[in-house]
């Protein structure tokens, strides 16, 4: 990789740079013929952050350490993208804090109760009994899984 451009013209005084700028198009035309046309369509490459991070100050990453949500496509070692600005409604996959422990589960809110539902038969649904021991930390918006 070469990060450092070794253009011998670098470091010229401002006036010279301006001069260079004026003649830039001609130089390019000489070098590439029709090439210059494509420059008009140059744009920034696709940025994954735009898709995965909708609200940067509220977005956090977690690392999955259980297979409780296998059915939802969440595997051990995956990265969860958690957006705290999304409202935790029933049916959303959330990062929850129960008795001081972080859990990833599907949130189920009924009239008088909250349950955390796994998507793996080996795990049981957790009925949240005492609300003071429970809080929803954030809503999972994406999962990054390596194939």
């Amino acid at each position, binding site marked *: 990789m070469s990060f450092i451009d070794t253009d011998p013209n670098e*470091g010229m005084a401002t006036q010279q740079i301006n001069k260079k700028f004026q003649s830039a198009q001609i130089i390019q035309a000489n070098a590439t013929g029709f090439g210059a046309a494509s420059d008009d369509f140059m744009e920034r490459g696709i940025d994954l952050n735009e898709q995965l991070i909708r609200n940067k*100050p509220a977005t956090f*990453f977690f*690392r999955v350490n259980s297979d409780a949500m296998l059915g939802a496509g969440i595997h051990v070692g995956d990265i*969860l993208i958690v957006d705290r600005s999304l409202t935790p409604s029933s049916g959303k996959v959330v990062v929850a804090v129960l008795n001081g*422990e972080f*859990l990833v589960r599907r949130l189920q809110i009924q009239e008088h109760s909250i349950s955390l539902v796994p998507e793996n038969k080996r795990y049981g649904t957790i009925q949240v009994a005492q609300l003071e021991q429970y*809080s929803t930390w954030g809503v999972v918006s994406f999962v990054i899984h390596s194939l």
Partner: protein
Amino acid sequence: MQAIVDCNSFYCACERLFQPQLQHAPVVVLSNNDGCIVSRSDEAKQLGINMAIPYFQAKDLIEKNKVHAFSSNYHLYGDLSWRVMETMRQLAPPGCVEVYSVDEAFINLDHIPAESLQDYCVSLKKKIETWTGISVSIGVGPNKVLSKVANRLAKKSKLLTGCIVILNDTKKIQTALQNTPIDDVWGIGYSYSEKLKTYGIHTAYALSIKDLSWGKRFLGGVPGMKLIRELKGMHSHDMQTPRTSKKMIATTRMFGRTVSEWQEIEEALATYATRTAEKLRRQHSAAYGVSVFLLKKTPPQTDISHYHHGRQVSGYVKLDNPSNLTPDIIKAVVALGKSLFEQGELYKKAGVILSDFVPDNALQTNLFVAPKDQNRKKLMNVIDNMNAAFRDDILKFATSGTQKNWKMRSERRSKRYTTRWDELCLVR
């Protein structure tokens, strides 16, 4: 109106965000090198643990009460600080947020109608807490000094005030000032508060009824006059433009252990020089002034109850041309350090301070800067970008060394949950 938004026990709150089992437990955070207590949760305050006392003085209390003590995790605090400030910037009109410190920001609320101030603050507070997980207190007043007074009262009785105090009429302002000891007025340091007490001024209210001319005469001239003017409810501090450049930038650290070899001091100084130059480039300044100080360890005193400060040696040099390039800064810093260093002494702290700034862009358009410098500037850009992308200073100058025996002690640091892929919080 002016608001100040201040995070509650900020460093402790950052630790708790990723260790929710500590939500109601006493927590303290220690300064660099685990020296002093710099942040306390409410539970720790109730145990009688004081602010800014050396860790060893509170050690018994901490161990007896199972207080959780953390080393400073500046990566985590810095990231969460940015989140809190960014949330405010997104919610307030452009240019209204002025970051004051890592955990405080002023917000200009002139656009909010008086009758909606309370609702606005409640919703702002809730949004910050929901988005970032950090709880805040908000003080509102006609100017910055009074917003600070309001904020202190909000923090003092969190349950009663809901962490929000708005001083929007003369009656409320007067009561608030009467309940504010003179020591707790923004800008009044220890020596001024002692002086004011000898004049019989014990509360902010007593100071607010003094004449402006009195303040000019007895309270440090124009700043004292401005302070009294604001206590009277008038406006004098203008909203600063956000991110005003600092006038001086320093990197100073205690060594993890005492150091006696020049080579180790040199490595430390070069590392601090690198850090400081980075900070300088971030604010687009270049410095003329370079200072270095070394703190010697004093021989143990017979009276061990006193916490002795070591003897300090320092030096200053003015560069021929202002610079923010790491090699220039390292060169000056190492030369200065070498002139201060004495063989056979033990050192426990060192620091690099840059001052006398000029804007960096003035340099870039300078016709007299040699081409060599332009190339070096490009190199610095590349190094900054790579270090930002790969972390842990993947690229550095050879003087900085690779051993770092002198490196800071941080035995109880939590993980850098928000800035490192390999230190993410685990979820089951």
